């Protein structure tokens, strides 16, 4: 069996040594180690000038030894017996026990001795032998000759083994060398002819020994043997010459078999020389050294073999040649020089002289032929080699000649059926030559032409196993030259031969065990890479049909060979990668096979584990069965809102730089907490047409200890409607803080344990998707408890929630408990309330006692918190609060307008001087009650700090839904002049929305009853506010920015609210329901247009019609032409005197929808139309007008003040006056 094609070539220069285990105790591992140690010594350097290498191979079997006379490299030159004495070499214990019981110690040594002698007897032509004894005493084995005994106490102490083996090799070398130098056959007249053992059988006729032809035959055969010895002793150049001579003689003697061998030897020698020069085979490295001198100074040399092993050849193994070539050291400088200029000549010269051989007369003529070294000999290595070596030759061994001689050898061999294998080996050597020449196309053709006949059915000389071997050799050869597809083809062909069933024989598991590795190695040729994670959408899979077929064959071979795990792995690979390309019947069959295999396997197959088959020669990588089921798009979810932590950076350790490029941002994106379940959302798809059951599905993570929760899925079959997959969440609990990497998932599918990585595909590239999640230390957990009933606010939210029902204006007291449910203390717990913003009046929810008990921390902002405290482990704290039923229409959240000034109730009348802008702010939501929501928000910091000084904050919330039932509310309001110019009546329309009578108490025990669903008007006297000047609101509007205007307006509103709220205290009680409360006047207090009117104006005007003060909104009825006296009293609140002209203007009210128009000419004023006045804080003045109307209708008469020159104009809000309404009729 050849492991590579070059073995066919190197064999011809290698001496065979058979090494076998003998004796009663056997230990295969120890024996293998000894063989390996011996094999490391397979090359020794036997001469340094010329450099000669002696090759040996240590084999356990020898084949075709009957041809050893024909080809010396087939001969067994020595045997080595390896014996383990009792107690050494780790023999099999059962055998040992058996041996011990039957045999004595003495008989063991006898057995070993006799076995060794038998081994020697098996190979009668050997030169010498060695018996390696491990564990025995030297004196116990006297039956073995002393120089052949190699006794070692144990394998470990056998340090001298290598030198002993080298000694044996040297001994063999010396014997062969002696044979080589014996060229007496050239001169002898009568010499015995070397013959093959059975040659007489197939020889036709009787040979006359006296003929010239016979003599030539003998001489040719001797020359052939001599050439073989030359080759074996490391002198290929001489061998070449000797082969030439042999060919000449044998050709004329027509000794075909030997001629074939001589042709083969010649061509092989050329190949060896060629390969050595190219450094292709073992000894090549030697010849690459630039000069001989350099080689001599090298203490030890590494020889690279083709298999990648390195052989160490030390100079101590250099054997002095019998001719004493050391003398060359004296003239070394000459040789070095000449080797630089014409190395080839030098080499030839030394060969001739050193070996002491005067071969067939060609050597002495060497000097006569001058050698021209051409600088440029082309790139062809053979050309260089040939011109170097054979310039003196009669015929140059050109490429063609080499191939011709190979073909001659093959032709000659083909004449002998029994030499079929020799012929095949020659073919392979020719192929090796073509490999060296890189002539791959010729090689393929040559291989096809010459090996085809061996594989033919007509070839009965070779059995199917030999044919399988031939195919395997071809496969190995094609692999060497990189023709992987050819290799796969021939390997598969060899399997077909191997499994060929002859009559009366059935295929055994062992047959499949043999073919399985061969088939496995064909995968590469078909483009199947078991290591590559296959993209399921990859269209560059290769020849899919062939791949499926070859994978199925491998699966079958593995299954029948009993490699059950390998069979499962191959089957899963087939399903994983080629599922879309399989037809449904095959898919069903494969799944059935898989099911049967899994059932027959006692343990759960681990798909991720590497499988080792055939003593480690085959390694099947792990597989990720990502197709069943398809799990994609992993997304790490944040924790529940009440559990999600945020990292609060420690501000006290802030950088000394404000602006620094090294600022580390706190990453709050993905944070999990120890002992708190985290979730990863994935999409799961079943691409099979049957139901798929996935068991033990859980996440695979790295980084920190993690406790995944296993899930079981039953996925429905995929059809046209259901092919988008379903989304599921995989759970797990991190058990320690740190960086958690979610790398993939594991599951049990089809009874197999499957582990897969998450991958991200970006175009054509796929890389593992590692999701990093930061896991924080275990944190405290706080929740809120409230005895209020649970509110149906949000179905998904698992947080507690509460619901309360109050009447508007009612106050409702309750408590809430903050509970720390963990055993970790909370060092800060702050309570906030999120609620609708109320502009005026009390808020919806208010904590009864805002307090701060928690120590202050620099790290974070605590000013927003209404209350803060510390919570012990498993501790709790109760907070009191009250809910006030605010006017449900008056929250600021309703406003879409940027103006935060509310006008939520309809004013009774447009009484202000200019109220157009405010009217657009009216809230017209019907007065039917409303559900308001508020939230208690508790944020807390566990008493845990990270290494960086960060603390961790969590929030918990308790939403409260407050349902406000309207009871007694304000429906409209109006500001009327009070009993003096410095007071105003706020007339409030109060509506009782309940079904029961309501009792109102206002303005210090004034009482009033309101019937159900009725409205009553409550006048409340309120003095004007002198803290705000009349033009303050106007000035606020003149501010530079909108925000400044808003802030100033709000400031003024707050002053006025404080002033007015003292007077606007209307309490209600419904005795039937036994409830009481306060009429919510927040809407009034938030109305700037109302409050504005309570500012003391600069000028107040009081009307008297026909001597009667005009106070009400009622129209004054007059007839057309009827004169009425309108007296206007002018009151000033200004400190300085104000001078102006007072006049009246009239406008007609046409309708509510059309408004009014200025109709000054419909009113006639008799007397002075404009009356001058001068007023100050102390002095007021009256002016009287006599007016009549000439057209019937509704008219409003308002005063108009024109400032005197030097006076500033009055702003609308600087003047307070109620227009007088007249109803003019024709008849009165």
């Amino acid at each position, binding site marked *: 069996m050849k492991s590579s094609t070059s073995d066919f070539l190197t064999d011809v220069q290698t001496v065979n040594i058979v090494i076998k285990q003998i004796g009663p105790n056997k230990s295969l591992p120890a024996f293998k180690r000894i063989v390996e140690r011996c094999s490391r010594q397979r090359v020794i350097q036997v001469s340094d000038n010329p450099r000669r290498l002696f090759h040996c191979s240590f084999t356990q079997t020898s084949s075709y030894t009957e041809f050893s006379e024909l080809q010396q490299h087939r001969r067994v030159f020595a045997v080595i017996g390896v014996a383990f004495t009792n107690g050494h070499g780790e023999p099999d214990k059962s055998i040992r026990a058996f041996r011990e019981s039957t045999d004595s110690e003495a008989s063991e040594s006898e057995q070993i001795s006799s076995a060794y002698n038998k081994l020697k007897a098996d190979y009668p032509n050997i030169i010498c032998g060695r018996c390696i004894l491990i564990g025995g005493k030297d004196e116990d084995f006297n039956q073995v000759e002393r120089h052949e005994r190699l006794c070692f106490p144990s394998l470990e102490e056998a340090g001298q083994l290598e030198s002993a083996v080298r000694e044996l090799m040297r001994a063999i070398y010396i014997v062969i060398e002696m044979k080589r130098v014996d060229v007496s056959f050239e001169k002898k007249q009568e010499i015995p002819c070397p013959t093959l053992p059975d040659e007489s059988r197939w020889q036709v006729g009787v040979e006359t020994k006296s003929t010239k032809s016979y003599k030539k035959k003998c001489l040719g055969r001797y020359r052939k043997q001599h050439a073989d010895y030359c080759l074996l002793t490391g002198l290929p150049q001489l061998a070449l010459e000797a082969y030439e001579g042999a060919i000449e003689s044998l050709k004329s003697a027509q000794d075909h078999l030997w001629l074939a061998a001589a042709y083969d030897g010649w061509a092989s020698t050329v190949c060896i020389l060629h390969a050595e020069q190219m450094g292709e085979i073992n000894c090549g490295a030697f010849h690459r050294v630039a000069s001989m001198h350099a080689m001599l100074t090298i203490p030890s040399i590494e020889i690279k073999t083709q298999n990648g092993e390195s052989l160490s050849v030390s100079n101590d193994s250099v054997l002095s040649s019998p001719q004493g070539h050391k003398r060359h050291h004296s003239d070394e400088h000459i040789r070095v020089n000449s080797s630089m200029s014409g190395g080839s000549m030098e080499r030839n010269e030394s060969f001739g002289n050193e070996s002491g051989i005067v071969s067939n007369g060609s050597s002495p003529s060497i000097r006569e032929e001058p050698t021209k070294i051409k600088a440029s000999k082309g790139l062809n290595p053979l050309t260089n080699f040939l011109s170097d070596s054979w310039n003196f030759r009669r015929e140059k061994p050109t490429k063609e000649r080499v191939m011709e001689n190979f073909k001659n050898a093959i032709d000659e061999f083909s004449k002998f059926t029994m030499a079929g294998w020799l012929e095949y080996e020659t073919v392979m050597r020719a192929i090796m030559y073509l490999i060296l020449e890189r002539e*791959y*196309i010729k090689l*393929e053709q040559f291989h*096809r032409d010459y090996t085809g006949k061996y594989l033919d059915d007509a070839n009965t000389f070779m059995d199917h196993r030999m044919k399988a071997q031939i195919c395997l050799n071809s496969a190995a050869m*094609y692999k060497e030259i990189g*023709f*992987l*597809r*050819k290799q*796969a*083809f021939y390997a*598969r062909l060899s399997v077909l031969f191997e499994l060929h069933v002859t009559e009366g024989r059935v295929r055994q598991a062992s047959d499949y065990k043999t073919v399985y590795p061969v088939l496995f190695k064909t995968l590469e040729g*078909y*483009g199947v890479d078991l290591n590559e994670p296959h993209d399921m959408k990859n*269209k*560059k*899979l*290769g*020849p*899919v*049909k*062939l791949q499926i*077929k070859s994978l199925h064959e491998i699966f079958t071979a593995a299954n029948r060979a009993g490699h059950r795990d390998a069979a499962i792995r191959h089957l899963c690979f087939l399903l994983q990668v080629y599922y879309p390309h399989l037809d449904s019947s095959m898919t069903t069959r494969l799944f059935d096979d898989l099911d049967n295999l899994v059932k027959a396997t006692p343990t759960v197959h681990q798909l991720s584990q590497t499988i080792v088959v055939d003593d480690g020669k085959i390694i099947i990588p792990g597989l990720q069965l990502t197709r069943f089921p398809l799990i994609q798009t992993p997304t790490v979810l944040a924790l529940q809102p009440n559990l999600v932590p945020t990292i609060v950076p420690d501000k006290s350790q802030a950088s000394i730089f404000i602006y620094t490029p090294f600022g580390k941002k706190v990453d709050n994106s993905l944070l999990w907490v120890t002992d708190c379940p985290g979730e990863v959302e994935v999409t799961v798809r079943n691409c099979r047409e049957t139901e798929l059951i996935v068991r033990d599905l859980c996440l695979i993570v790295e980084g920190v200890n993690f406790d995944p929760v296993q899930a079981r899925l039953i996925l429905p079959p995929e059809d046209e409607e259901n092919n988008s997959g379903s989304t599921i969440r995989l759970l797990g609990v991190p058990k320690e803080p740190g960086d958690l990497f979610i790398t993939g998932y594991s599951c049990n599918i089809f009874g197999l344990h499957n582990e897969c990585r998450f991958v991200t595909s970006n175009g054509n590239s796929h890389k593992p998707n590692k999701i990093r999640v930061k896991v924080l230390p275990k944190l405290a957990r706080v929740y809120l408890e409230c005895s209020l009933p649970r509110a149906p606010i949000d179905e998904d939210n698992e947080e507690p929630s509460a619901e309360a029902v109050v009447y508007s204006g009612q106050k409702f007291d309750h408590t809430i408990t903050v509970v720390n449910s963990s055993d970790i203390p909370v060092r800060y717990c702050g309570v906030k309330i999120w609620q609708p913003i109320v502009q005026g009046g009390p808020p919806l929810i208010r904590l009864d006692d805002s307090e701060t008990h928690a120590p202050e921390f620099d790290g974070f902002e605590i000013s927003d918190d209404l209350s803060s405290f510390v919570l012990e482990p498993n501790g709790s704290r109760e907070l009191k609060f009250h809910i006030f039923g605010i006017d449900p229409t008056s929250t600021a959240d309703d406003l879409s307008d940027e103006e935060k000034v509310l006008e939520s109730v309809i004013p009774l009348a447009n009484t202000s001087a200019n109220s157009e802008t405010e009217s657009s702010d009216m809230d017209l939501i019907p007065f039917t009650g409303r559900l308001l929501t508020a939230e208690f928000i508790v944020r807390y910091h566990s008493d845990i700090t990270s290494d960086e000084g960060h603390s961790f904050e969590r929030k918990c919330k308790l939403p409260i839904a407050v349902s406000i039932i309207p009871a007694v509310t304000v429906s409209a309001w109006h500001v009327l002049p009070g009993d003096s110019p410095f007071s105003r009546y706020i007339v409030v329309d109060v509506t009782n929305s309940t079904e029961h009578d309501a009792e109102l108490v206002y303005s210090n025990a004034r009482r009033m009853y309101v019937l159900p669903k009725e409205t009553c008007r409550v006048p409340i006297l309120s003095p004007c506010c002198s803290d705000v000047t009349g033009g303050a609101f106007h000035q606020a509007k003149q501010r530079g920015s909108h925000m400044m205007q808003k802030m100033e307006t709000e400031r003024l509103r707050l002053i006025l609210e404080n002033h007015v709220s003292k007077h606007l205290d209307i309490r209600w009680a419904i005795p039937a329901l036994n409830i009481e409360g306060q009429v919510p006047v927040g809407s009034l207090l938030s109305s700037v247009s109302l409050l504005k009117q309570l500012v003391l104006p600069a000028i107040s005007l009081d009307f008297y019609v026909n001597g009667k003060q005009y106070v009400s909104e009622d129209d004054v009825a007059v007839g057309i032409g009827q004169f009425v006296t309108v007296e206007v009293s002018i009151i000033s609140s200004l400190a300085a005197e104000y001078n102006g002209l007072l006049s009246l203007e009239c406008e007609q009210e046409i309708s509510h929808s059309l408004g009014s128009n200025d109709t000054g000419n419909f009113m006639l004023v008799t007397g002075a139309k404009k009356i001058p006045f001068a007023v100050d804080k102390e002095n007021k003045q009256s002016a009287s007008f006599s007016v009549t109307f000439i057209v019937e209708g509704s008219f409003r008469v308002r005063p108009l003040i024109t400032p005197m020159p030097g006076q500033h104009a009055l702003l609308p809000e600087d003047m307070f006056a109620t227009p007088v309404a007249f109803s003019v009729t024709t008849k009165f």
Partner: protein
Amino acid sequence: MANKEFYFAIIGHSDQPIFEMDFPAGERKTKESEGTRHLNHYIGHAALDIVDEHAFTTTQMYLKMVDKFNEWYVSAFVTASRIRFIILHTHRADEGIKQFFQEMYETYIKHAMNPFYEIDDVIESIAFEQKAALYGRKYLS
């Protein structure tokens, strides 16, 4: 083998057949022919090493007969874009095969010029099949 048989395949860059056709065309697929088809796949695939080696060493597109296994000869043609056309045939018909390859090359180029066709995709054009069958009848009989 009495009948002349041909198996034509266009092989993509990953050794995958992108078009296959048997000649004489139109014969019903028997179980035996399915088996032959498998064998053809193996022989054709193994010949690709030689085809590639030829393609490296010669500038010719038509590579003549490059391989043989049992009764099957393999002839090949390599396009400029290294798409390989191979024919497995039981009888030598070099001139006809050469003509067939030339015609199919032109047809393939026309097909490949379709902007919706991506190189290495399986050829599923009915017109292409009809052309191949036509040229098969014309040159491979």
